[in-house]
């Protein structure tokens, strides 16, 4: 059905285009009377055609995607090109000339920027910057190498007579080399999207394709200028100027992008009242960054890339959730749409008799050299790079990296911009460029997947890892950080730590709204999500039961608040025991009134089944190491980042553990090294008083009851420990959070959730920093501290012991 519609549309277009010639005549007729309806084609011609083309391209995508068996084998980009051929053929047949082709203006100003903006905005920053050294190496050196060798080889072959009589000088060859050499981000994305190689490999190729624009622009402009100047006028000065211009173009472009990125972040800080059009800013400013860089003859692609890269974090924090989603989705729509149109037009542009000048030698040699030099270049560079990499890039990955050097529309666009006065063989070059593009996109694209499978390239981790793996990965992360700290190495973490400090101190304060900074507190996030989910489920439950009557039942209310990670429709106690077929024995006792609190697990872990989904639980709650986390880049797959800040918790916990073990050592109990065991049945109240000990942190910690890992805080903790307190911050007073102070079971009449609700919202004036840890400025215990008195006891007074816990 869709194909038929499509064909109809195609006929309409060709009909329209051929009609337009005749319509011109109509408008010159003398008006004899009032016409009730007129056909005003010329008025709407341009926008109509644009809209029509977009529609055609998108419909093509629709048709293609309805054959998943085909798209599994042949990448979508290749199919789109083929479709473009067909379309071009039809138009050619209708018009006998190619009325539509991919002009440089349209491509570079209307189709490319949004793709790059999307790439920058969705860039996995950590992965990118970790591998930046390698990426830069490939982008700069690799491109220069490919351009130079290709140009020289072709020139050499021409001199050797392999190509017949061609009038191309060395400079022109170098120019041609520079435009062919660049790996194209659009093509790379399109092909790698479907293959899902491991993230390091992907980021290398993709990052290279983005950053090599700096080099391409410079090379192209320099050689273009050289060609215009003519051979004899080139001397050392010009060459040096060329080299300098590289640095100017590359860094200048990046700086322009950064400036625009910061500008849009700053703007987003103040857009609270215009949330409805908040998303618009990034698009406008991103586009402006592209145009500004281009205006200053700097690298426009680099500019947009860095604009996206730098504003990601702040935009995602500052804007309302709906705006964030809007931005993501709209960007994907634009990027996808542009990509589709580009490929279709790449196909159409081929069906044009005027551009085809065929020279077998030239074409074949270009193809050959492009491939060969790419392989050689990649291998040499990787060999050198591996000396400096922690985990060397495997040989197989290098193969895929070389094979993944796809050329695309950028090369074609540059080729059409060649000056045809100076370059006699422009048509040949255009034609050859198209052939190279087709070869890489279609042939290499089609064979990429089987190649990857055959070579057993490590793929991106898609499968759900086992629990042990998850935990162990985290253990590894933490171990690495610890070892780096112990050995005093300045590794990646050091730089990253320093950057994080700088960023938090200066940039976040400047660029984030106060709410956003608040929300960086993970606990608050969890609480917020809990509330949201609660509200939704509340209503769902009410609807399910026919009315919200059950709400008025007090006990039901309290029990509803109980969250053990199971299905919310099973909240009522009478049905829960009956209906629950959960195998976990320990959950059968209904723990009461564990409430809507921040120390409960986030709702994202709830599932349809009654099992606690241990995987999700783990996923949500594992402390993230300081070295950071997985990221997936995909055109079609949008993920939400979660930012954590658990340093406080870890610190507190460690201090408590050390205290306890120290205390038990002092009391002659188990030796200091073993970890005291907390079991559910452990009724021992461990009260640890303040001593002036080395390992003491800021607070005394008393723990008790059946949830031993929850920490009660006592007021008046004030021990100076020179190791841990570099700056003399006043001790933050703490109070026992009420939901912990009483360890009584179901007897309490007031549900702690309600009490907790009373304590919220906390006011900024009472917010105290828990500990002057450099890394974090947020207190995880802000809720507890919200109502604490301003006065504090600083003296080393032993606090009264807490009330003994009741038996459970």
């Amino acid at each position, binding site marked *: 059905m869709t194909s038929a519609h499509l064909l109809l549309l195609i006929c309409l277009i060709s009909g329209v285009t051929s009609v337009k010639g005749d319509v011109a005549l109509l408008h010159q007729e003398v008006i004899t009377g009032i016409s009730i309806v007129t056909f005003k084609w010329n008025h709407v011609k341009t926008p109509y055609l644009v809209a029509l083309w977009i529609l055609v391209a998108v419909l093509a995508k629709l048709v293609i995607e309805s054959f998943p068996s085909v798209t599994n084998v042949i990448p979508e980009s290749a199919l789109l090109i083929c479709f473009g051929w067909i379309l071009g053929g039809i138009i050619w047949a209708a018009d006998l000339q190619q009325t539509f082709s991919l002009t440089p203006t349209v491509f570079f100003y209307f189709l490319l920027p949004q793709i790059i903006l999307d790439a920058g905005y969705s860039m996995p920053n950590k992965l990118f910057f970790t591998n930046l050294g390698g990426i830069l190496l490939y982008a700069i050196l690799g491109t220069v190498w490919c351009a130079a060798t290709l140009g020289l080889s072709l020139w050499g072959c021409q001199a050797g007579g392999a190509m017949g009589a061609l009038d191309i000088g060395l400079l022109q060859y170098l120019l041609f080399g520079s435009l062919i050499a660049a790996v194209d981000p659009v093509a790379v994305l399109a092909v790698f999207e479907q293959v899902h190689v491991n993230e390091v490999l992907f980021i290398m190729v993709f990052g290279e394709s983005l950053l090599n624009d700096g080099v391409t622009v410079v090379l192209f402009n320099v050689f273009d200028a050289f060609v215009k100047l003519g051979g004899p006028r080139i001397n050392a000065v010009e060459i040096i100027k060329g080299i300098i211009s590289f640095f100017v173009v590359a860094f200048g472009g990046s700086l322009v992008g950064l400036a625009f990125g910061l500008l849009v972040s700053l703007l987003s800080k103040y857009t609270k009242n215009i949330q409805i059009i908040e998303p618009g800013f990034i698009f406008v400013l991103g586009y402006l960054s592209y145009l500004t860089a281009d205006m200053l003859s700097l690298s426009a692609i680099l500019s947009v890339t860095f604009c996206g890269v730098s504003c990601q974090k702040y935009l995602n924090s500052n804007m309302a959730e709906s705006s964030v989603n809007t931005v993501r989705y709209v960007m994907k729509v634009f990027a996808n749409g542009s990509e589709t149109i580009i490929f279709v037009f790449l196909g159409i542009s081929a069906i044009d008799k005027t551009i085809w000048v065929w020279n077998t030698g030239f074409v074949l040699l270009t193809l050959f050299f492009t491939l060969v030099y790419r392989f050689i270049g990649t291998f040499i560079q990787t060999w050198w790079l591996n000396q400096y990499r922690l985990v060397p890039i495997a040989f197989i990955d290098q193969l895929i990296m070389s094979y993944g050097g796809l050329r695309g529309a950028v090369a074609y666009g540059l080729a059409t911009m060649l000056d045809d006065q100076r370059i006699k063989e422009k048509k040949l070059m255009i034609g050859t460029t198209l052939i190279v593009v087709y070869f890489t996109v279609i042939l290499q694209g089609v064979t990429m997947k089987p190649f990857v499978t055959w070579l057993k390239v490590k793929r991106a981790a898609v499968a759900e890892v086992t629990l042990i793996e998850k935990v162990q990965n985290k253990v590894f992360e933490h171990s690495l950080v610890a*070892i780096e700290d112990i050995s*005093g190495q300045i590794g990646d973490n050091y730089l990253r730590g320093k950057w994080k400090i700088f960023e938090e101190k200066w940039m976040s304060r400047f660029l984030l709204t106060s709410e956003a900074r608040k929300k960086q507190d993970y606990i608050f996030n969890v609480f917020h999500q809990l509330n949201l989910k609660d509200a939704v489920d509340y209503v769902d439950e009410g609807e399910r039961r026919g009315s919200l009557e059950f709400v008025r039942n007090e006990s039901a209310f309290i029990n509803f608040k109980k969250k053990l990670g199971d299905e919310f429709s099973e909240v009522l106690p009478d049905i829960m025991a009956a209906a629950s077929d959960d195998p976990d024995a320990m*959950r059968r006792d209904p723990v009461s009134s564990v409430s809507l609190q921040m120390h409960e*697990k986030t709702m994202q872990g709830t599932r349809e089944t009654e099992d606690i989904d241990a995987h999700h639980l783990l996923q949500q*709650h594992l402390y993230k190491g300081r070295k950071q986390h997985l990221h997936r880049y995909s055109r079609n797959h949008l993920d939400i980042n979660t930012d954590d800040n658990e340093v406080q918790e870890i610190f507190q916990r460690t201090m408590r553990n050390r205290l306890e073990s120290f205390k038990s050592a002092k009391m002659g109990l188990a030796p200091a090294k073993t970890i005291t065991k907390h079991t559910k049945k452990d009724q021992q109240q461990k009260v640890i008083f303040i001593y002036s000990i080395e390992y003491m942190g800021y607070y005394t910690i008393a723990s008790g009851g059946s949830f031993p890992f929850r920490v009660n805080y006592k007021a008046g903790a004030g021990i100076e420990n020179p190791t841990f307190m570099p700056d003399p911050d006043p001790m933050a007073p703490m109070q026992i959070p009420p939901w912990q102070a009483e360890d009584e079971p179901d007897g309490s009449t007031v549900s702690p959730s309600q009490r907790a609700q009373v304590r919220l919202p906390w006011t900024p004036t009472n917010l105290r920093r828990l500990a002057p840890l450099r890394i974090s400025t947020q207190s995880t215990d802000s809720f507890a501290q919200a109502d604490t008195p301003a006065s504090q006891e600083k003296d080393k007074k032993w606090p009264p012991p807490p009330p003994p816990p009741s038996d459970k």
Partner: protein
Amino acid sequence: MGFNGTSPLLDQRGELRPEDFGAIRELSMNPIGDRIISAFFSPGKETVDFASFVRILAHFHPTETSRSRDGVQPEPANSRTRKLKFAFQLYDQDRDGKISREELLQVLRTMLEMQVTEEQLQSIAERAIQEADLDQDDAISFDEFRKSLEKVDIDHKMSIRFLS
């Protein structure tokens, strides 16, 4: 190397004690910092000398796959097995060769945020043991540990470059 110069570990005695490790502030912000520290000390000993220190750190050297293995050479410290053994011992504090449920629970407790309730922890630990335990003895032996981690890229995850 950090031991004798650039790190905050001041040392004039030629050996380290646990308190010296404790002086590293970042370690107290690490959930398993204490376990790492205790991994440096052989069971029962209160000090670690330079040689042992280096030996432990050597576990984190990137694995060299190109090294030819002859039967005579003892297995290098940074081989995959040894790395895994090191990781195993982070769990297995009582060195009985098995990770019992209790030990796993302890590690989970330190690594998970405080929002997780005890029941949830128990169920995670139980699931984890179920997934990994092949001989149904309710504990994870080293072989089961290794088997469950065979898909993990240990090289990537447990290597630090030391001044090489």
